[in-house]
């Protein structure tokens, strides 16, 4: 069918851009590498030249983290927007990032070792999200309005507490450290953090795939989906748990990277339509491309220090989205 051919072509285009972005992400940095050198190093992992070390020890884990963060946040956003049938929903809505931010702020003030942050952020994000889901419980299921309200309330609570920690207890260097975590960064993580995050993100992705047919039916309305045999309560829990795992995995290695989970689903729906069998898988390359691009800019835009990737996405990504999504359309 013509529609599926167009969707397929767009997915292939996304995958090609993703492959190019991965190579560019490895090539670009304080020490520039030629694309051919990158490909050579990737194919020969046991070489002993500097390029191989840079590629395998530093840049490859970093671009894979970018892929994981972008893919996880975008899949989570696409699923939650479909579940709640609301394009304003962001994966952080359920409190995961706010809970993790507060935990990391406390950990920094208490002088916890930096290598423990990824695990702490993961546990806090997962715990907060599932806690919000439990607050929104209604009968066997979860009530969408209660979920949104509980998520906003808990997020505000943790945001307030985080500010309190910064103002009252953090030294100036600790404050800077907390702020840089809040600004989002892919720096400082190696294969170990990536491995754990990938494990949890994969678990989330498998649950997400199981929810795809039900999410598809939900596009016809909740009542119709139930009449078609969808177990609404089970679907809501499945999506919430999948999304919690994905968000927690992303937050553990990136801090707070905003707007990807809100905006990428809109881009994906425009490219591949709202059929979740296309939109959910296509969210992975689309989200990864956005985060990879942002990370390359974050690493190279300023000569003296990295820019926070979350801040960069807000400052550069959001105006670009607004231009593409609204202003250009109005002009046309």
């Amino acid at each position, binding site marked *: 069918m013509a*529609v599926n051919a167009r969707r397929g072509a767009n997915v292939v285009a996304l995958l090609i851009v993703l492959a190019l972005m991965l190579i560019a992400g490895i090539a670009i940095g304080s020490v520039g590498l030629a694309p051919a050198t990158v490909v050579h190093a990737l194919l020969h992992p046991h070489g002993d030249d500097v390029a191989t070390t840079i590629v395998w020890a530093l840049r490859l884990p970093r671009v894979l983290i970018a892929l994981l963060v972008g893919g996880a946040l975008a899949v989570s956003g696409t699923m939650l927007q479909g579940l709640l049938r609301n394009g304003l929903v962001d994966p952080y809505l359920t409190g995961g990032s706010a809970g993790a931010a507060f935990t990391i702020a406390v950990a920094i003030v208490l002088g916890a070792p930096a290598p423990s942050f990824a695990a702490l952020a993961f546990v806090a994000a997962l715990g907060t999200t599932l806690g919000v889901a439990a607050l929104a419980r209604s009968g066997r299921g979860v009530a969408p309005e209660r979920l949104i309200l509980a998520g906003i309330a808990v997020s505000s609570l943790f945001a307030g507490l985080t500010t309190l920690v910064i103002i009252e207890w953090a030294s100036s260097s600790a404050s800077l450290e907390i702020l840089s975590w809040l600004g989002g960064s892919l720096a400082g993580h190696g294969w170990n953090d990536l491995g754990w995050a990938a494990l949890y993100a994969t678990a989330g992705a498998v649950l997400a795939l199981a929810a795809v047919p039900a999410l598809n039916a939900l596009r*016809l309305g909740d009542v*119709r989906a*139930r*009449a*078609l*045999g969808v*177990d609404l309560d089970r679907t809501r829990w499945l999506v919430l748990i999948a999304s919690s795992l994905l968000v927690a995995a992303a937050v553990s290695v990136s801090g707070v990277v905003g707007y990807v989970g809100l905006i990428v689903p809109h881009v994906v729906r425009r490219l591949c339509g*709202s059929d979740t069998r296309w939109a959910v898988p296509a969210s992975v390359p689309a989200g990864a491309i956005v985060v990879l691009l942002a990370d390359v800019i974050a690493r190279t835009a300023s000569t003296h220090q990295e820019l926070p990737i979350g801040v960069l996405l807000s400052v550069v990504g959001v105006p670009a989205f607004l231009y593409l999504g609204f202003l250009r359309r109005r002009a046309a």
Partner: protein
Amino acid sequence: MIDARGVQLGYPDRVVLRDVTLSLHPGELVAIVGPNGSGKSTLLRALAGTLVPQLGEIAVDGRRASTLGPAERARRVALVAAEEHVDDGVGVREAVALGRLAHRPWWRWSGDARDEEIVEEALARVALAPLADRAIATLSSGERQRVWIATALAQEAPALLLDEPTSHLDLAGAYATLDVLHGLAADGAAIAVVLHDLNLAGAAVDRVVLIGEGTVLADGPVDAVFRSDLLSRAYGAEITVLRTTDGTLVAAPARRPRNGR
């Protein structure tokens, strides 16, 4: 097929219908009529098994409706609910294909050739084949109603329940819809349809269930239910029943006093 015995229906804060006993049989097209807010849609939801009765029991194929899993229920009973928002960009064929959801395991994302055949048949049965590639959002309300009927047909459930499928339709459209339902009943389906228009029920179905005063006031052939006293009681307004030259019973409003005369 579907049996309700001594059923009381409602919501935590109020009772809508009490003491409802009725059965739907294969090959039968039944109209459920009654005034606004009398509980027609509530009754339909309960018969479909999505609303659990407060008292009494509803059985589908001899099994308690509330014990059927969602997919199992969808394979036995198809429900065409009243209008509900559909996401932009959902295509007609795509929606009808979702009718096959309950017939495949959760890990299979798409139907096979047999599913596709059933979807095309359902589209053809309601004359939607030419519009199959259109987005639902671009259809007229009558065409949209047919999409939901086709989706229910693709479900291949032996019982079909429809909530006002003829609302928004002109008379020709309503007849066309009821003709499709008659055809399905002739093929052995058990069909109950909530109709807002009493006279459409009188003209087009064999059996009428009249809801009023919080219960089933009458259940039987049109001749037995279309009685001035029963209809007036159910609707709380004076209604006269007339017989037209072709024998159709018509519920007519009684003349109202005007300007004091």
